């Protein structure tokens, strides 16, 4: 009887120690997961690149017609990039830019038809150093690089049909990923 009682007390003690160990494990796991989740900034670069691409498309194509600042009488305006930011109401300079570096990049290619290799009109804007991020495969190692977005649309001008491809990229790594 005494032996039984001692065995029971021993088991209870073992159980409570085991239980405290479980509680400690659960607490540590929850704290670690919460830290992992809230420790990372919200990454909105993909959305931002999407919005930028949509804004570029909205600016260069109005009611299905290519903007007259880009093409007039079938001739492309090669100097459009110098007035692009002003015409489209974009401002890429900001106080939170990392070392004054522009955090956006974009490219507009206009083809006279599908399957055409070389674009009839090409324009790049923003920080050209970010461009490479759009050709590198995404992965954890490249997370700090820019996020890209691509839009393909059709437009017309003077009855001619054009295929427009807009590529945009947003860097802002220090605000969206733990570098």
């Amino acid at each position, binding site marked *: 009887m005494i032996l039984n009682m001692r065995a029971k007390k021993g088991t209870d003690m073992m159980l409570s120690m085991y239980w405290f160990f479980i*509680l400690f494990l*659960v*607490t540590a796991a*929850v*704290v670690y997961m*919460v830290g992992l989740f*809230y420790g990372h*900034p*919200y990454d*909105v670069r993909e*959305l*931002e690149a999407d*919005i*930028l691409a*949509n*804004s570029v498309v909205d600016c260069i194509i109005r009611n299905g017609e290519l903007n007259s600042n880009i093409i007039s009488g079938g001739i492309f305006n090669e100097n459009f990039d110098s007035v692009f*930011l002003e015409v489209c*109401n*974009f*401002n*890429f*300079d*900001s*106080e*939170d*830019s990392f070392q004054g570096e522009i*955090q*956006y990049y974009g490219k507009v290619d206009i083809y006279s038809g599908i399957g055409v290799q070389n674009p009839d009109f090409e324009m790049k804007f923003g920080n050209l150093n970010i461009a490479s991020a759009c050709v590198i495969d995404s992965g954890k190692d490249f997370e700090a690089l820019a996020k890209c977005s691509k839009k393909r649309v059709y437009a017309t001008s003077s009855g001619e049909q054009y295929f427009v491809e807009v590529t945009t990229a947003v860097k802002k790594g220090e*605000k969206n990923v733990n570098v």
Partner: protein
Amino acid sequence: MKKLVKKRGELLIGNVIFIILNLIFLTILVVFIIKQGSGAVSLEQSYSKQIALIVDSAKPGMKIEVDMQQARNSNKEWYDSNYFDTVVFTDNLVTVKLSEESGYSYSFFNDVKVSYDIYPEGKLLMVVSEK
């Protein structure tokens, strides 16, 4: 017989205490998780990014209302006395500040003028117009 009843009573009290302690532990964990999610620092980041993206996709002439009830609830005392300073637009940068020692800024590329008003009940009203 008396001994048996006493033993049964002790067993019941022991179990009840055990369950109560477990519930307290779980409650503390849940409160901890909720507090982390609704903390000023985390909300500042989420609000400033949300507002910047809204402004980026806005067209001149748009009137936008943002519900900032959660921001108000996170630090009610501070919000009620400083609500007019919680959101600040400077050029193309939006800064959200929900406590004295913190603040988060995020930039937007849309070159527009944003006129805004913040209300004490936790509402941000923005009117987007051309510069």
